[in-house]
Each structure stands twice: as C-alpha cells, then as structure tokens.
C-alpha cells in the first residue's frame, strides 16, 4: 500500500497531479500549506486540481446532456487512490508518524524551502530510512530517488487534455493520437516535384491508406493530409511522448461555450434544429406588422441571443452526431498538431500545404502557445515550399514537411525557457 506525500503547488497544480499519476498510490496526502492565505488565482488552481481528481471537468452549470463523456478521465477513486488533504500552517504540524511504512515523499511539487522542511520532518519522525523513499518526479513523468540516484519510469503520465486543464483552466478536445508505427512507414515517402514551388508526395493513393481511415478522402492539394502526416511522423521523434492531431481549446463556462460554438459562420443552425429567429419569445415587443422591435443597444441583443441559445441547448436533447458537431465548433483557439516532449515542453504546429505563408499562421500558433504553455513551448509551421530553418524565425520554426523524418527539435536543443527559441544571439 503506497502512500504518497506531496505539497500542493498553488501557482500551477500540474506538478502535484503529475506526481500522483506517476506513483499511482493507494493514498495521497496533499499538503495545503498556508492555504488560508491563498490568492484568488491560487484558490482557482486548487479548484482545478479538485476537478481533476474527480475525473470530470464539466462546469457546474454545464448541462449534463451537452457534455461529451470522452472529455472525462479516470477519477483518482477509480484509479484506487484516496485523496487526503492536510491544511497546515507549518510543514512540521503534518502528522507523518501515523502513516506507517511504504511512504513515498515526492518533492516535485511545492517550493524547495518547504520541501527541505518536509524532508527534515520525515527524517526526524522516522530515523530509519527503510520506511520511506525520497524522490523527485521529473518533467518526463519518471522519478529519481535522491538518495540512491535510481530512476524509475512512471505508472501513468498526464494526458494532453489533463495538462491543458491543470495549467490553463481550458477544456481541450484533442483529435487522433499519432502512431509512431505509421510514422515509421511514411516518414521517408517519395517526393514529387511536378508542381513548381510546392513539394508534393508521390503515390498519394498509397499514402492515403497509411494516413487515415478508408472514409478519409484526402485532397493532396489542401493541407488536411499534412496534419495527419505530421502527427504520425512527429510521434517517431525520440524525445516525443505523445502527439495529437487538432487540439481545440474550449472555454470553461457554459455561456462562453455556447457563444463560441454559435458564433462560427460555418455552423449550420439546420443541423442542430436551432430556429433562425431564435428559440424563445422576443422580449422587446413587436410592431403592428408583427416584426420585432429593434433594440438600439447592441449589448442587449447580444445578451438575449446568448441566453436564447443557452436555453435552446438546455431544453433540448441531441443525437451523438449533433453533439459532436456542436463541440467541433465550440473552440476559442485551435492548432493542427500538438506534441508533448519528455522534458515537458509542448510543440504546437500549424500545417500549411501552400506556396506561401502569411504572418497570421505564426500568430495563431504563438497565441495558443501563450495561452497553454507560455514558458515551455516550441512553435512550428510545417509547410511545402520553404527550406527548413534551423533557427526559429520570429518565434516559430519553419519546417519543410519531408524534413520531419529527422527529429528536428530535440530536448538537447531546447533550453527550459522559451527565450532560447527566440534568441537574439541565434539570429
């Protein structure tokens, strides 16, 4: 029966959650030190952590029937882990003596000063060190015993969706997972130079078979196939833990979710049955012809439409297909390919199978990086006409798609802070 002790990290609960996933303990003792003095953002972080432990991040006001069950993950209870919170003014007031043997103390989460105090407290309580292990979980999810130097691989690692939630409080919908096996089969694909200025793959029918399901009908003039290609080939890079195609970030409130979905021009009201003139009664009256009296204040109209759309979704049920359809439009930010590296870095990638690149492409990918992982992300554009740039240009690596066969971005080339990637000296 493994008992994990970890200090809650109120500035970003990701390390605390990572530590729990890594050890998959029977009991986790989460130390909330001076939590009465938490700032609002720290209280929010604790709220996000508690939602994470519950396995569902569905906001309280979000109707159950509108939620996608695949957005949930196993709760800690389902994983066989009991969570025990300890509200402490000082580390030394934590009663570690009652825990007994099989203790793992993980110093990954919390400040170093607090962790030294915790280590000393455990050592004083248990003079014999065969009761406990002193470890630090690493960004890869592996953990290192700081006494013996022995490194062990984790039981589980956090998924991309969990990480997005914990670090930014946004709901993430991630698409298909990249397969290193498929990536190995396609990464050296023959090239065609038939089109001036644009590198195309040869034998596109064969490539289609490797890239997607039989229903996928790839148009090799457009960029969709390249998203699939990059997702699989980047999964072969040795430093990459996981890749996903299409990461959509959704707002974490019901009203913003509805507004995000219904504001997309491509969403068809017919497909979901939303009446073109709204679902509820127009509150500002009608004229003698029965037409709505217009409101001068745009914000009043905006508020009514948002309330009306929320009411429509709350009062009606939808087929699974319709639900997936609504969710596919409810994003506020998206990126074509996302990868998590073993050092915890993110790679955000846009794919453009065109003969030119515009600045908006770079800006989109930089914006999503700023929102999810401002200090630990690498941004890239995979494209078909420019040579790969070994140094990032304006914060973004530009990669020619056939070059994806090489691990172009390795842990050794990325320093733990983003500034190395947009470096004065690198130019």
């Amino acid at each position, binding site marked *: 029966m493994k008992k994990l002790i970890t200090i809650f990290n109120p500035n970003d609960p990701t390390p605390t959650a990572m530590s729990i996933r890594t050890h998959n303990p029977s009991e986790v003792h989460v130390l909330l030190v001076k939590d009465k003095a938490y700032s609002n953002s720290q209280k929010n972080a604790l709220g996000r952590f508690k939602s994470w432990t519950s396995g569902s991040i569905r906001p309280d006001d979000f109707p159950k029937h509108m939620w996608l069950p695949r957005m949930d993950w196993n709760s800690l209870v389902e994983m066989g882990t009991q969570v025990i919170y300890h509200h402490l003014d000082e580390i030394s007031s934590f009663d570690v003596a009652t825990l007994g043997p099989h203790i793992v103390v993980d110093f990954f989460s919390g400040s170093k000063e607090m962790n030294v105090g915790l280590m000393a407290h455990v050592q004083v309580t248990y003079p014999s060190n065969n009761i406990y292990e002193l470890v630090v979980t690493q960004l890869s999810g592996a953990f290192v015993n*700081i006494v013996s130097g022995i490194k062990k691989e984790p039981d589980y690692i956090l998924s991309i969706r969990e990480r997005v939630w914990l670090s930014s409080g946004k709901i993430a919908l991630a698409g298909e997972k990249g397969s290193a096996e498929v990536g190995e089969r396609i990464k050296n694909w023959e090239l065609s130079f038939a089109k001036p200025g644009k590198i195309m793959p040869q034998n596109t029918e064969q490539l289609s078979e490797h890239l997607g399901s039989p229903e996928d009908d790839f148009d090799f003039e457009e960029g969709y196939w390249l998203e699939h290609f990059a997702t699989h080939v980047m999964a072969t890079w040795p430093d990459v833990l996981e890749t996903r195609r299409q990461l959509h970030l959704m707002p974490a409130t019901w009203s913003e979710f509805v507004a995000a979905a219904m504001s997309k021009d491509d969403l068809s009201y017919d497909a979901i049955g939303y009446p073109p003139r709204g679902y509820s009664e127009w509150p500002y009256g009608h004229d003698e012809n029965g037409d709505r009296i217009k409101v001068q204040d745009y914000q009043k109209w905006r508020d009514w439409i948002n309330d009306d759309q929320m009411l429509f979704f709350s009062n009606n049920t939808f087929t699974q297909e319709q639900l997936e359809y609504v969710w596919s439009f409810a994003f506020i930010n998206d990126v074509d390919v996302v990868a998590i590296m073993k050092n915890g870095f993110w790679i955000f990638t846009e794919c453009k199978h065109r003969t030119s690149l515009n600045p908006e492409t770079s800006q989109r990918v930089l914006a999503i990086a700023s929102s999810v992982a401002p200090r630990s992300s690498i941004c890239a554009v995979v494209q078909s006409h420019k040579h790969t740039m070994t140094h990032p240009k304006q914060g973004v690596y530009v990669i020619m798609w056939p070059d994806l066969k090489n691990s172009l971005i390795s842990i050794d080339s990325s320093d733990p802070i983003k500034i190395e990637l947009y470096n004065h000296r690198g130019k």
Partner: protein
Amino acid sequence: MSRCSVVVPRFQHVYATVSDSAIPLLVLVEGFSSSSFTFWYTPEKSNKVKYLSRYFESKFPSTQFGFVELPSMNNPAAQVLAIREHLSILNREDPSPSAVFVSAGTSTMALSMWFHARSNSWISLRKGLELTIWNPTEGTQRTSICVDGTTLTLQQILYSRGWIYNGKSLQNEGGIIGQDITVTYDAEQGVLSFLKNIKSSKSRVGERAVSFMSALLDEFGLNGATYEIRGPLSNRALNLMNPAIAHTEREGEEE
C-alpha cells in the same frame, strides 16, 4: 523593529547552484563571505561560470571558491550520483558545519545536495537582500541576514555576467550590444532593472526589443531583476513576449 539578525551564523562550507539569476548568488556571497563556496553548474549554465569565477575571485581574494560541473539537466539521476559522490568525499575530508543554498537550481539538485551534504541548514533568498537561514532538523527559529545592498554596484552585477554598461548601451564580451537601454540597480531593494523605450511603431523595432530583452532575461534571470518595454508593440511581438517582461503602451499605462 528589524527582523534582521546581527549575528551571522558561521558555516565552513556553503553549497549552491549556478542558475539564471545573477543577484541571489552575489547576495549569498556578500552575506557569508567568511565561508568557502562550492558552486555546482550544469553544461547548460557553463557559459556563466568564467564570469562568475572571475568576479568572485577578484572581489573576495581570500575566500575559497570551487566550481563543479554536474551532468546535464536531462540526466537528473546522474546528477544525484555526482552530487552524492562529490559530497561524500568532502564530508569525509572535512565534516565542518555547512549549509545549502536552496533558491537556485532544480528541486532534484537542491534536495539531493541538502540530503548528501548532511548540512542540516539551508539558506534561501526569495527576493530582495534578505537571506533566510534555517535548520529544519532542529526546528529552531529562522534567522534573517540582511545584506547591505550598497556592497554591490550596478557595474559589479553586470560584470559578474560578462556585461558592461556605459549609461546608454549594454554590451557583453560576446559582442552583443543593446542600444538605448536604461539599466539601474536599486541598492535598497536589491533589484536590477532593464528598461527599453520604443518610439517607433514599426514591428521590426518592437520585435528586436523583445528579442534583446529575452536575451537579458536569460542572462540575469527572474530573481532580483525586472524587465520592461515601453512603447508600441505589434501583436506578433506581444505574442513572443515572455510573461516576465512588463509592457507599457505609453508612459504610466500598463498592459
């Protein structure tokens, strides 16, 4: 009433890690200059060592400084073993009281250093010039040592990282030059400040400023240093900006 102790605890050895931030290590040595210091560094930070070593040895000629290279940040298990081996030799040779500075380096490095040094005491510097010393094993009261900020000057701090400032431009020994930048040191707070004013709204000017400020952040770190750009920045430059760099659109208007 001041929280600062007038009696500085005596340690024969102080162990610390070379990190991005310049001020904490300088304050540490000012506060405990009668001790000997072992600074651990990883290959990722090795470019800082020659400047630090030159600075400390010229300013404190009678103090002993050692610099020990650890394996890379990407190999934490090897780091633990290297720390364990090195400290077991030191402990055997000289078991005098020691302390570990925990405010720099990764948790793996700081925690394993504290464990293997058998120091009992740690020293930390969360901000400013106040060093905290505590022996958590004995559970005694924390002691605060307030370092006199005037023992450091702006030029000394810059020199410790291989930079010089002439009142207008900032240059390092590698040849990087930043023009029209204001660099100040607040000796009361122990804070180094970098301020870049931008007048042009051309995106390239703003992006160059963000780039240069980012390079400075790499050189001088977050603890004990502030970074600010004043003036218009394009969206692209703003997207690239590290959150640690403050941006003011116009004077007095913070974004």
